[in-house]
């Protein structure tokens, strides 16, 4: 492996890891803060990717805009969607046993996948990268690297930084952190915890949808893509330690590196490497890398 290939694989690993982090961060937040196991989280990623495909012509017709207006419309829609979803299906699940939540969200996966099949069909689609980002950068003498992949990494980094800021530096973040530690106490201090939860949930949904939309030009859009990403994201969440954003970031990058280089160096065992890594880490640290609380 020469240096240019190595560099390209590093960039790919970074991009994949950051994308995983975006989806997994919503999962770890909803799980860590609200205590809900949300199996339907992968579906939001799938919905995002399909939005990037299906919304683009609609948005183009109404606003005359391109890729970025589609992103904006998608985010607004997903916040509304997440807010309504929390109200309808999750608000009464907090007191329940985890396994009841598993049952409920499993039902949601079935419904989302079938809705997708009804509305958009079961075909595999490609989504074009926006023309402004469609080029590639030369790397070494023979290799090039697509600009769009760099853009994906950039968006993910920006969002990660934004999340970190909101959580550690703002009043809202403080309330959310407090709410995850002691729900009743926060409530008795006069903070509307239900609204706060709904907000966190909607934000988690929006981030997953955004990740799906941004990933669509890189990964193409296909049925069942949500389930694939869901399992990997659960792996990220537990390796990082449930509820820990920092842990999720580190774990996602780790998985990105292991998966990408596994596919290059050990293609026969690429699929299983991620799970071997998880088993090893959890046998070494039974509560993940960064335990919260």
């Amino acid at each position, binding site marked *: 492996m020469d240096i240019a290939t190595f560099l390209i694989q590093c960039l790919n690993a970074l991009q994949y890891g950051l994308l995983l982090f975006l989806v997994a961060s919503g999962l770890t937040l909803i*799980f860590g803060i609200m205590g809900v*196991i949300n199996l339907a989280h992968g579906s939001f990623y799938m919905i995002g990717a399909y939005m990037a495909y299906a919304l683009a012509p609609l948005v183009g017709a109404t606003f005359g805009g391109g890729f970025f207006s589609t992103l904006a419309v998608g985010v607004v829609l997903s916040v509304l969607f997440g807010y309504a979803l929390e109200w309808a*299906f999750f608000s*009464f699940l907090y007191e*329940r*046993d*985890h*396994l*009841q*939540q*598993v*049952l*409920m969200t*499993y*039902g*949601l*996966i*079935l*419904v989302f*996948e*079938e*809705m997708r*099949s*009804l509305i958009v069909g079961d075909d595999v689609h490609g989504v074009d990268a926006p023309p402004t980002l469609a080029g590639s950068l030369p790397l070494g003498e023979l290799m090039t690297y697509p600009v769009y992949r760099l853009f994906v990494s950039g968006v993910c980094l920006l969002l990660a930084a934004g999340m970190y800021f909101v959580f550690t530096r703002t009043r809202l973040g403080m309330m959310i952190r407090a709410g995850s530690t002691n729900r009743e106490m926060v409530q008795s201090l006069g903070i509307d915890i239900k609204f706060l939860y709904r907000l966190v949930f909607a934000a988690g949904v929006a981030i997953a949808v955004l990740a799906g939309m941004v990933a669509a030009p890189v990964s193409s859009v296909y049925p069942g893509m949500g*389930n694939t990403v869901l*399992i990997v994201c*659960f*792996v990220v969440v*537990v390796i990082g330690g*449930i509820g820990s954003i920092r842990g999720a970031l580190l774990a996602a990058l780790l998985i990105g590196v292991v998966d990408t280089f596994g596919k290059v160096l050990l293609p*026969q*065992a690429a*699929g*299983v490497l991620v*799970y*071997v890594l*998880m*088993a090893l880490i*959890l*046998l070494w640290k*039974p*509560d*993940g890398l960064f335990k919260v609380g």
Partner: protein
Amino acid sequence: MDGIGIQRGKLAFVLLVFLGLAAWPAVAGNYGVDLVGKIMISSIFALSLELLVGTTGLVCFGQAAFFGIGAYAAALLMSQSGSSSLWWLLPACVVCAGLYALAVGALSLRTRGVYFIMVTLAFAQMAYYVVHDTPLGGGTDGIYLPGKPGLGTWLDLDKPLAFYGFTYVCLLAVFGFLALLLRSSFGRALAGVRVNEQRMRATGFSTFPYKLASFTISGAIAGLAGFLFAVKDGVVNPELMSWHQSGAVLIMIILGGLGHLRGALIGAFALALLEEFFKSEAVFGAFAKHWHLGLGFTIILSAAMLPRGLVGIPALWRERLEGRARALDAKSSSKEGIREAVV
């Protein structure tokens, strides 16, 4: 209803189910016998997980690995040895699954909660990739069984009725075994681990061997279900070990109701029959190909309205009736109170 009455009701329910299953081939056609045979295999699979999740409180998300190992062991052992005697084949397959469960349990029981769920998934995925990506398991195509196992001339599992009968006996044996196990002191200890492991340890139980034993037994029973499945279909493929399979069986027992053996039976039957119902073109016409939608909404509704699963419906009813009776009592007594005050 008093406590003894409820106990009798439960016993009567289980007896009725098994009597109904025994009588089923007499009234049903080929398709019906085939379908219920398949559901009985799922029931054994679900019972194996119920021992772990419902009784011991360990949520395993890798049960399909043991199921798949039972199935693959059947295919590999039959084609390697050339023998098809049930006498040694069945125990060998069950032992294979049990041994893998013993190894997985010994490692993964160091973790708890969601971490345990994910470690068991990891080990199941490893088994999945071994049969999927190595020459051992024949890749994505899987392996065909060279024939059907049997016992000489007097049991030939190639005949649908014989297979139905054999599956029925297996289900009955597993149910009976687990029912006895749960009533033994071992079963009580497992329940203790579920309710409060700390306290169990404080009272002098070393809980780890109990959990490991439960995990191993559960894996072995799942292996039995996998063996039956392989014999029924005559072919094994990696999908038997996929996490979808582990998820489906978990959904079965949650839907049926955790903490009761009959919940696993009810869940296995309910999920399969619901699927059959929403898939039937006679009822839904062209919409039948979107059967996931109906199934999904039914599952959501059941999660929302039945916190104890399908098994909890009678209790829910009783509580509602008692609540109504109490409300009536309260109303009449408050009227009397008013009358007294007036007088």
